[in-house]
């Protein structure tokens, strides 16, 4: 008897859920015809983004539907969906992946005076296929008690003998490291880039592991004197719920390298309109909204990124590190040199 009851319960659950799903699907289809929407494929899994999307919905009445996954997976998904892809906008956290999406014919060129005017030209695609939304700098974090900022100068200097066994950096599978090396390839050439990667490997204090925050913790724990990290993670640590993390972040200084020369390597989180976007107009409005003053304010206040809009000041936490000169290398170069960078990493033994 129990068994039968169980079977009935299980079956009714199955059918109940099944019909629920159908109902919601049908209603979604009905909505499609009535409601304005924009389908967003995004790699940015940040809470503040939700807030920005909601603001966009309120001000335009266009509903934002989101698929979250890593940019690589999203690009693969768009490729497979082809013309049927529901994606309107692709958002990534680095320029390299946007370059890749463009290369594979997944994005389209768009006309937007707003984007054209707001975004510095080296932070957007030459063919207007993608646009930077926020900036992040890859900087050198140093232990305040052991290193003086005067000892630091450039990325290239990190391979000098004095830093032997002192450098902390994460795995080469990380896109920010790949972009950094890609920028060195673009600026100094492949041969120097390879020497540089080998030099860093020789100076590493431990085999690469963990994420950027872990490099900072290891730095303070004394495992090394310098760490190559993205600045906004320090911002996040300074505002962490864990008092210990806050204390840790306060024990490091940030140094922006290459100030005398080309400037510090920066990358963008950016967006592009999908080639087969079913809601192209909404997609453009959406991206324009992301570079509006309100949205930019949230990006920097809640996520500690550098706003792309010059009229918005970076939040106090990251402003404290001072202004710095940015490398104005066209970010297209990052995507173009990405694969070369990965091959060099392998050859240099950078895990």
């Amino acid at each position: 008897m129990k068994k039968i009851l169980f079977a009935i319960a299980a079956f009714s659950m199955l059918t109940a859920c099944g019909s629920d799903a159908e109902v919601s699907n049908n209603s979604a289809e009905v909505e499609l015809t009535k409601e304005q929407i924009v389908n967003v494929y995004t790699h940015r899994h940040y809470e503040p983004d939700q807030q920005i999307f909601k603001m966009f919905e309120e001000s335009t009445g266009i509903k934002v539907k989101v698929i979250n996954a890593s940019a690589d997976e999203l690009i693969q998904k768009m490729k497979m969906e082809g013309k049927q892809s529901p994606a309107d906008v692709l958002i990534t956290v680095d320029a390299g992946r946007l370059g890749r999406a463009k290369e594979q014919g997944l994005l389209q060129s768009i006309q937007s005076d707003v984007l054209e005017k707001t975004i510095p030209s080296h932070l957007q695609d030459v063919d207007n296929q993608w646009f930077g939304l926020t900036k992040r700098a890859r900087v050198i974090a140093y232990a305040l008690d052991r290193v003086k900022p005067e000892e630091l100068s450039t990325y290239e200097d990190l391979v000098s003998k004095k830093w032997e066994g002192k450098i902390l950096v994460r795995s080469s599978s990380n896109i920010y490291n790949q972009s950094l090396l890609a920028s060195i390839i673009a600026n100094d050439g492949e041969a120097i880039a390879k020497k540089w990667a080998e030099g860093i490997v020789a100076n590493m204090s431990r085999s690469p592991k963990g994420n950027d925050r872990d490099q900072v913790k290891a730095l303070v724990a004394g495992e090394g004197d310098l760490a190559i990290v993205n600045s906004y993670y320090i911002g996040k640590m300074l505002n962490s719920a864990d008092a210990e993390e806050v204390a840790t972040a306060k024990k490091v200084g940030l140094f922006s390298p290459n100030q005398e020369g080309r400037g510090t390597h920066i990358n963008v989180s950016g967006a592009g309109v999908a080639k087969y976007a079913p809601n192209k107009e909404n997609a453009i409005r959406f991206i324009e909204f992301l570079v509006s003053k309100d949205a930019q304010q949230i990006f920097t206040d809640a996520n500690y990124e550098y706003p792309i809009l010059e009229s918005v000041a970076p939040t106090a936490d990251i402003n404290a590190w001072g202004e710095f000169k940015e490398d104005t290398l066209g970010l297209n170069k990052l995507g173009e040199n990405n694969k070369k960078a990965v091959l060099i990493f392998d050859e240099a033994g950078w895990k």
Partner: protein
Amino acid sequence: MKQAGSNSETFSLKSRIKRFLRDNNRWSVFTLAIVLFLALPIIFIGVELFAGPGETWSHIVKYLLPEYILNSLFLVFFCSVLVLVFGVSSAWFVSRFEFPMRRQLEWLLILPLAIPSYIVGYAYAGIFDYGGTLDLLFRQWNIEFIRVDIMNRAGLAFVLSISLFPYVYVSARAFFLNQANNLLEASKMLGVSERKTFFKLMLPLARPAIVAGLVLVLMEVLNDYGAAKYYGVNTFTTGIFRSWFSLEEPETAVYLSALLIIIIFALILFEKWQVRKIKFSSSKSNSTQIQRKESSGVQKGLIFIMVFIPVFLGFVLPVAQLLYWAFLTATTVFDLQFLFVSLQSFGIAIISAFITVFFALLLIYFSKWSALRFIKNVARVGVLGYAIPGAVIAIGIMIPTIALDKWIIDVLGQFGVDSGLIINGTLIALFYAYAVRFLAVAYNPIESTSLKVSSSIPDSSKVLGVGNLKTFFKIEFPLIKTGVFSAVILVFIDVMKELPLTLILKPYDIDTLAVKAYEYASDEMVMEASIPSLFIIFTAMVPVIFLNKLLIKK
């Protein structure tokens, strides 16, 4: 059906085909159809194999492959050892002895499975980190803290073992509980010591069950991406992702997955071979449950400690760390929406669990009823999905379903209907993907219990003219119920924490707890990921406790 009608039994192709036509029955056809359906994504990946690897292959072989192989072998070896120690010892103690809190520990031992292994990895890193939990405690006691670096190969082997050993525990316990009693009594009567009985009798007999669990563990170990990446250990699977995304060569990634599949297939064949070698069936022992031994107070205490250690390391400690993080971040992260997402996750997981178990039952029994022997081996092809990284399966699913979708769009388009994608981006594709991915998880426990059902019972039923299906429902199903329910639970838990597949194939409006946890963790907000992780654990606890009640009542 045709008569072969020839007495020259040569092994020519002709006679083989003849024999196939003669012995072929509808069950064989059904089995083949189901295998084809479930293996379709794997076949699509396999086809790409003939294209060969991309141009960076020689680069990979030169700079990366040795490390991948070495690290993967290291993990396979040490995880096997640890998992066997934790899984088998706890299963034996729990089945054989009475000790304090035995009932609670019995189901607590399954729960480490409920925490995604990358989250366990984060939790342990958090415990041993600078400024981590241990560091803080030691500082409070004013003791110099010597940091143990857990983020390396050995640490990874530990983390994976401690979160995966329940696969072995579950299958070993099912054997000890239901099959071992008669032999145990006999051994006792012959005056054989407890220890000798265990090592000389129980362990060899339980081997098929234990190995079935172990194969699942190893598939999952080889497939792990999150924990390995975080701990900086490069394995086959991290290599698949590197060649796919960093080197931009999907064909090389597919090639590496295919190599991985071959390794797994070798593991499965090894398992089959060793089960056949021991060829056994204890037919009559289904009726009696094992008698538990009362022992002295000291012994009880020791046994309690032995059983508590894996629960402590695999569940209590990581959950404590997660709770601490949750406490720190609750005000910013907690949201009533989590309750809704929990319900969604629960619904998706339970439906997929039933679908997957249903397919596993079909495969096992159809191939049994088929008169052709090779069909049984063909059926096993269906379980390979577990060894393939979820992201790769997702691609394998999308190739045929998108083709089908496009065909539907074309057909409907002629009638002026624009249907859009019907299968992709809906729950159908997701359920299909889960069935492909987790079939092995359902197949193994059901198969190992069904092997123990002596064939004489269903045979006599069939002699009496009762059909296959009726025999199954009236006689066999009640006997393999334990295995079936274990399978439902295991698939349920696996779906609850599944990530890459879900990310790629999920519909817009559906969220799962695993996806929520990932959104935080991938942005280095490990602490914030603790709340959705805890929700996964608590949601998974519900059916685990329910299953255990069923097992005990039996």
